[in-house]
């Protein structure tokens, strides 16, 4: 189908975006990479009064290390994050996750901010941001506020972002030296949205994992930080025992919804499978992830 008629503004600076959002409220839609909004327009599931193109706003596509934090501008593309040496060095979890997002042509335009604002439960960036304890910066004519990724995602495609606000950047603390990561995802085909996936971080001390953080995608209405499961994985015993404990705890924290191809029970099973793969990778019991 073809997009319905709408008005269009190419914004030159953030204050102009704020003014339009204040004036038009819910009928205005921000256009970033367009890789989710354009399909919605073409299928006419959304009909904005005015579309505000923010892709040419200056200074919103940076990826920088400042005072122990990585600042990622909302307009940084999936491709730019995947190719960034700063990300590879300091946030390798994101570098690994980028390769799972859609396909090269889509990664060239889709943005970090757009993915977070959309809050698809099967998307990679929201789960990574929860695992990494990212802070999202929301800007409006009233100023800026910061919100933790955990509090930002509130439900299915629902976030703390208000209609007068723009997600301008994300601030991610660089994990402590020695932090290990694993990003494991199952999809029907390369580039499809995940059936289920996990972003995992931990530190390893004398062969033990500590500060384990497991954030799941495709396992609920929002990214799920599985805190009890992380605690249940206690390596005082053997790896196998600890893994079994973690896997059985998982059911109390994940509530995956069935989709066209997978029942909720299948998804939970698959979540257990990728949990094992992630934990093996973290403790470096080198196991190929196939």
């Amino acid at each position, binding site marked *: 189908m073809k997009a319905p008629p*709408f008005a269009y*503004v190419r914004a030159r600076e953030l204050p102009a975006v704020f003014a339009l959002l204040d004036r038009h409220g819910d009928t205005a839609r921000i256009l970033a990479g367009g*890789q989710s909004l354009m399909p919605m327009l073409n299928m006419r599931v959304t009909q904005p009064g005015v579309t505000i193109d923010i892709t040419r706003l200056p200074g919103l596509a940076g990826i920088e290390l400042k005072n122990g934090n990585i600042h990622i501008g909302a307009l940084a593309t999936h491709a730019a994050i995947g190719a960034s040496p700063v990300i590879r060095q300091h946030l390798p979890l994101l570098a690994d996750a980028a390769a799972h997002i859609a396909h090269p042509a889509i990664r060239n*335009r889709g943005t970090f901010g757009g993915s977070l604002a959309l809050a698809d439960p099967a998307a990679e960036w929201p789960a990574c941001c929860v695992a990494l304890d990212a802070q999202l910066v929301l800007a409006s004519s009233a100023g800026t506020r910061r919100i933790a990724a955990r509090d930002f995602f509130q439900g299915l495609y629902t976030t703390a972002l208000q209609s007068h606000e723009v997600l301008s950047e994300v601030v991610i603390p660089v994990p402590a030296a020695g932090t290990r990561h694993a990003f494991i995802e199952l999809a029907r085909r390369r580039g499809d949205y995940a059936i289920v996936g996990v972003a995992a971080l931990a530190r390893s001390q004398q062969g033990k994992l500590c500060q384990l953080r497991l954030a799941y995608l495709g396992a609920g209405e929002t990214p799920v930080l599985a805190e009890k499961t992380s605690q249940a994985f206690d390596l005082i015993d053997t790896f196998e025992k600890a893994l079994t404990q973690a896997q059985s705890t998982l059911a109390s924290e994940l509530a995956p919804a069935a989709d066209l191809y997978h029942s909720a029970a299948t998804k939970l099973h698959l979540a257990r499978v990728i949990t094992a793969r992630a934990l093996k990778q973290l403790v470096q019991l080198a196991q190929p992830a196939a």
Partner: protein
Amino acid sequence: MDTELDVSFTVNGETLTRRIAVRQNLVDFLREELGLTGTHVGCEHGACGACTVRIDGEIVRGCLLLAVQADGRRVETIEGVSQSGEIADLQDAFHKRNALQCGFCTPAMLLTAQDLMQKNPNASREEIREHLSGNYCRCTGYQAIIDAVQSTLAARSPRGVSQS
């Protein structure tokens, strides 16, 4: 706030200035206003990849970009890339290896494969598959397409050796 906009950009090296309805996507503009029908339209929601074009040298989905967003940019389509001879060897390999049947997916396959070959001249078979994963082909079963890309890569490599 506009529903039509005056924009100017280059298509296959030629500068054009037009007034374009903002809701028109780039692939519809190329096909319907410029008659460049080599870029195809399949799904119109980003799934099939048939609408692939290059903007400032990078491949994008033509159905997921408004034509007015090309303002000031360099747009290249299969017609331009074909006529310049840039992918003549790849086209030849597609022909020789039966990498197309109905041809619907072919222009986008060629542009996507060329993108990979420029970025990763040593791409493995697995990497070729991965790079082409966003392009549907309903005829060939993909093997012949991968073969054609792989043999072109080998022929382009200075050593002329397959890297798989």
